[in-house]
């Protein structure tokens, strides 16, 4: 059933979202946000399905590149693979256990969809092979001193990146059958590194840290090593997550400082005349979204299909932003399209737009639940 094409559907539980949305208190709150050009509801998130409680918090959900399945992970040390059943409901197809001894913090599918990487607090990263629906753990990447916080694949699937509380970012090269060689150990951050993510089009790696910065890295061809080629400063507290725009020209980041920042790639020789160094792009903050979130923003997802940005927040809400029509790319403006204030009962840890089906969003929370949403324009 993994190859089901996703039919648009709306028949599932729609309920609470709309109810919440129509409360007068909500409306009032939204109007005060007008400085961000927020109009009243320009869209809404409909809850399609709430998936059975796991044991303990769910840290992360990751869509399969085809968009017809997703993986979740969390405190129960297992990975669950979800896909649609005969009735078109998301249901748990596999539970992968015995890969890790502690919490699994993040899962990531390889671009080809045949491998799933899992990053765990047990200091290891496991690679699971998908053999026609059977998952087998065939490699374990060891080397981090302590908790691995995040794992990401490069576009080619030939590189993996991991990061840890040990403050380092590691790059792994796929070296053949179930062999992964350490290609670089990068010690650019001065604190815990929360997230790693590759650029969608080239081998540029970004990492976000407790040291309030985002760092960028690229291959150094003269040295067969990697180097830090950019530091993005501006957040006033931990940067929890990052997400590239579909074309890779911009990066969105979210932080413990309750803001979202948009960074734009200014390559050497850019017409705007932004100075660059050593032939590397300058990534400049062109927009800060503040005032919307009331707590730490734990995750951010920039939809490659619709351009919508979703955020997962410690105030239990999920918010969706859209860039305004005709916004200047050097000083863009974004508007809040909708906010689901009690999207979950506790912190929302992760939001992820489906890569194939526009508007489909998965979220997960400390409350142990995974929810699947559909964004609709109104």
């Amino acid at each position, binding site marked *: 059933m993994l190859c089901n094409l996703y039919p648009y559907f709306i028949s599932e539980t729609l309920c609470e979202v709309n109810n919440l949305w129509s409360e007068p208190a909500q409306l009032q709150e939204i109007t005060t946000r007008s400085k961000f050009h927020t109009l009243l509801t320009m869209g809404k998130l409909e809850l399609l399905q709430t998936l059975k409680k796991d044991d303990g918090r769910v840290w992360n959900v990751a869509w399969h590149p085809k968009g017809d399945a997703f993986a979740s992970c969390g405190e129960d040390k297992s990975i669950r693979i979800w896909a649609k059943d005969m009735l078109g409901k998301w249901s748990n197809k596999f539970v992968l256990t015995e890969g890790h001894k502690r919490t699994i913090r993040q899962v990531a599918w390889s671009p080809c969809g045949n491998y799933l990487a899992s990053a765990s607090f047990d200091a290891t990263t496991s690679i699971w092979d998908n053999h026609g629906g059977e998952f087998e753990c065939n490699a374990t990447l*060891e080397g981090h*001193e302590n*908790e691995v916080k995040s794992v990401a694949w490069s576009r080619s699937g030939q590189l993996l990146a991991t990061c840890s*509380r040990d403050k380092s970012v590691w790059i792994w090269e796929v070296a053949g059958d179930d062999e992964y060689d350490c290609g670089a*150990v990068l*010690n650019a951050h001065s604190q815990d590194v929360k997230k790693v993510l590759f650029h969608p089009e080239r081998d540029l790696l970004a990492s976000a840290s407790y040291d309030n910065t985002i760092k960028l890295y690229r291959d150094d061809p003269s*040295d067969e090593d990697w180097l830090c080629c950019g530091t993005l400063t501006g957040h006033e507290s931990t940067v929890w997550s990052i997400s590239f725009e579909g074309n890779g020209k911009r990066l969105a980041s979210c932080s413990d400082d309750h803001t979202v920042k948009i960074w734009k790639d200014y390559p050497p020789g850019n017409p705007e005349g932004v100075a660059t160094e050593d032939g590397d792009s300058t990534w400049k903050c062109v927009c800060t979204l503040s005032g919307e979130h009331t707590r730490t923003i734990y995750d951010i997802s920039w939809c490659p299909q619709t351009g919508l940005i979703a955020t997962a927040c410690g105030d239990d809400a999920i918010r969706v932003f859209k860039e305004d029509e005709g916004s200047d790319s050097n000083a863009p403006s974004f508007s809040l399209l909708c906010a689901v204030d009690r999207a979950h009962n506790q912190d929302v840890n992760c939001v992820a737009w489906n890569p194939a089906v526009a508007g489909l969003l998965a979220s997960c929370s400390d409350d142990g639940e995974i929810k699947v949403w559909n964004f609709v324009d109104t």
Partner: protein
Amino acid sequence: MSRFSGVLQLTDLDDFITPSQECIKPVKIEKTASSTGAKITIQEDGYFQIDEDGSAQKLQKVEITLSDCLACSGCITSAESVLVTQQSQEELLRIFEENKNLKLQDRTEDAKLIIVSVSIQPILSLAVRYSLSPSDCAAKLSQYLKQLGADMIVDMTIADDLALLESQKEFIRRYRATKSDGVKNILPMLASSCPGWVCYAEKTHGSYILPYIATTKSPQQIMGSLIKQWVGRSVEGRQIYHVTVMPCYDKKLEAARDDFFSKETQSRDVDCVITAIELEQMLVKDGISLDTLSNSTFSQPWLLKDDQEISPLLTRHIGSGSGGYADHIFKYAVKELFGEEIENLEYKNLRNPDFREAVLEKDGVVLLRFAIANGFKNIQNLVQKLKRGKSNYHYVEVMACPSGCLNGGAQVRPKDGTSVKELASKLEELYNSLPVAIPEQNELVKKLYDSWLGGQESDKSSAVLHTQYHAVEKIANAFNIKW
């Protein structure tokens, strides 16, 4: 900027956690027994326990030594602070000063005999820094250290030779034990001279990796034994203060290991380690340019005779600038195990120039497979292969710093406009220009085996020239659990 090798920086050494914040070493706090109700107040000059009757008692400060830190898995020690007090230029200068004063007071017999052992890599680093030839640089460095108060400056090549010879023999023992007796987990033999690597292996991989690490001491510690035990015997009861000049900070950690504290002399075999970059700082502080000093001599106190001063004449060993372990052991093994001679080892770069291998092949069969792995990344790949049983090496020369010891973490930094890589290749070039020393042909070493160690392969030489390693158990502690 830290001067530890990258390996140790990653293992929390030089970490942002300082001992005062998160040290987990249990410490007995000396305070009077009292019933409940005592309070602790913080005042400007310390912590005070206030008893119920109102009396205040100052609480002792927790003192953490470098060896406490080395034995602990908590934070290896961010102990730059600890290091700085025990292994610093200030400490060295204090000893020099103290000694000078004793001599001024005509109490020469109470003054220490200060011997400084110099390794080749920092001399080359300073030679490039001050545009001197290596031997000139050594002679002027000798002059500078004597001005400061050192009694003798000695060349460490003799200890390098001993370390190479012992490593060669150890390899043959391991190889034969594996082939004929089926002993497991002793090949590949891994180099033991880099303390950053050894410390990392102890803290991170423990019993998995330690059996593979050669038990042969590093040249620094062999020099320590030679100076404190052999030379010490002949100095008529004077206490020796032994300083080594080294290319990296990790050597300070090595000198501080409990294994290298001698009960016999009640002192460490190496009392203080000073590095190239610290010497440069001292020279700058004193307003001295090394090239302006006159040349002085090196001593050979192990000859145990009066006429032992010579002009320094620096040499190198074949192979890498980290001591040439892989080359020496390979050549020796080819001869000893297969009765052949080879002139030059040809290395093939693997993933990068810092991971290269050399093989001995006969009739399509690989008889020996050696490698040099420098830098953390390559160490990592080596260790992981070893753990998964996928390593087919017989010997690996492992060094924590990229490019090995010539590029040690505490070598003088490149001046503006030069890259680290350019400087490293300049140092390599300079190293390769030196005349080659062949350990087997060192007559002095042969004499030392006979007179000091009771012959080669004797119990005494294995006791004096070998050491052991200790896996550090990970301690789970609440501080270690963070999101």
